[in-house]
């Protein structure tokens, strides 16, 4: 038997808290809160040189175990076939607003100049892992393809299934041309494991983990994100209202 005071207290607390939840769910409130993302991005860009580097660590700082997150093994038959043939027939497509669309094999990408960096991977959940990444700077791929007028964003289309469709992410040209932004094909000196995004994944070191698209199949250069997925620029942005700018 619950005492009357306890019952009234519980109802009062629940009423207060469900009131809070109603405020939280209100579109106006969400709109106001969302405006802070633009403020944060502009403020960070204001105090950060566009080429300012993320901290690079030494081999002694490596995480003993580099945690993988999200998809550990894409489910599609296409991906399974690529994996079985060790990505011999896999091609990275670079298209959209470019002068010369590309279709590159893993060997061709491996023959391009590579950058190796030991950096910290920060998940939006709060954990961090330090790993050594090797890959081709995205800038070199974009220069080879040649951006056309109006190009503003780079979209990464991935092989892993998420919900109804495939994973996708996007960054702007400031991050795309940053010296540490690479399409990585190796982790800790080994070819990129499947759990970490084989054969190649994006590293965009000044943003959180969900921006670092794994299993990248196609790099599309676009003028606007409106036609990509739900229009907010990425899988988590569209499905769960995560920030597109994930520098914080």
């Amino acid at each position, binding site marked *: 038997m619950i005492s009357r005071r306890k019952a009234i207290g519980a109802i009062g*607390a*629940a009423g207060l*808290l*469900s009131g*809070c*939840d109603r405020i*939280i769910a209100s579109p106006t409130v*969400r709109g*106001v*809160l*969302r*405006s*802070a*993302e633009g*403020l*944060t991005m502009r403020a*960070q860009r204001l*105090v*950060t*040189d566009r080429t*300012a*580097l*993320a*901290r690079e*660590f030494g081999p002694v*700082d490596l*995480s*003993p*175990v580099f*945690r993988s997150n999200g998809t550990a093994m894409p489910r599609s038959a296409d991906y399974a076939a690529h994996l079985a043939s060790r990505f011999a027939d896999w091609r990275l497509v670079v298209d959209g607003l470019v002068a010369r669309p590309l279709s590159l094999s893993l060997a061709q990408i491996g023959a391009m100049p590579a950058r190796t960096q030991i950096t*910290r991977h*920060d*998940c*939006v*959940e*709060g*954990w*961090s*892992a*330090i790993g050594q990444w090797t890959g081709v700077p995205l800038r070199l791929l974009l220069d080879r393809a040649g951006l056309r007028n109006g190009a503003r964003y780079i979209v990464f289309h991935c092989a892993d299934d998420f919900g109804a469709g495939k994973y996708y992410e996007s960054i702007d040209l400031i991050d795309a041309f940053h010296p540490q932004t690479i399409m990585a094909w190796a982790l800790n000196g080994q070819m990129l494991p499947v759990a970490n995004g084989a054969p190649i994944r994006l590293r965009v*070191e*000044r*943003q*959180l983990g969900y921006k670092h698209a794994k299993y990248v199949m196609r790099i599309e250069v676009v003028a606007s994100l409106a036609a990509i997925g739900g229009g907010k620029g990425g899988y*988590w942005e569209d499905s*769960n*209202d*995560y*920030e597109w700018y994930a*520098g*914080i």
Partner: protein
Amino acid sequence: MADAGDRPLVYRHRLATRLWHWLNALIVIVMLMSGLMIFNAHPRLYWGQYGANADRAWLQIGASPTRGMLRIGDRSWDTTGVLGRWKDREGNVQTRAFPWWATIPSRYSLSAARRWHLAFAWLLVAGGLAFLVASLFNRHIRRDLLPRRGELAPGNIWHEIADHARLRLPAGEAARRYNILQKLSYLGVIFGLLPLLVLTGLTMSPGMNAAWPWLLDLFGGRQSARSIHFLCAAAMLLFILVHLVMVVLAGPFNEVRSMVTGWFRLPRERGR
């Protein structure tokens, strides 16, 4: 009132102080509750540059198939019902770290908690800076908060602690000014906890790490900063609880009125 003559009203809190107090009452509660939800996304704390599930956590809130538990170092406590394993409003068992009544929003959502936390962080910083400027200008810090000569003497501090322990709170003329324990608490929050919370928060931002790499060196890494951020939040919660208890003990009507209108009635001298 008959005795109003020997208990004068004094103008105690200026407008800037009152505005900042009530603005912060809202902001800090939103920050604490949305912060607990963000913690729920990864309820483990580490020291150093990195830290994930395979690494040793110095603090962890978790669940077994039947119990909730808090572990700090090698010690652990059963916290079933409050931490790690609790029932939500519908009576369903949840195994998140902090319970629904302590978080914003009450149902698990890391993205919504981040929207609240990172938007209100701007208000916290903007309000704090405005208060600092106003308080330098109106001499609040120098006149009301900085300890005077002799106040920091161990004898005086000990005397105040002993009086507070016996709940003999300052009365009469002595209540015109903050006592040394109040001054040290407020100075500690304004110039200690709040700046630490903001700076450790910025240290968790990969963008700010590139902009201001010294943040990582100052706090010994992103995961250390996350731990310090959590500990400072706990200290802030403790400050709020003690603050509320003291308001109740000192006379809630008079105290709340003074923080709303600025006017405070000096408490009667003891023994009269």
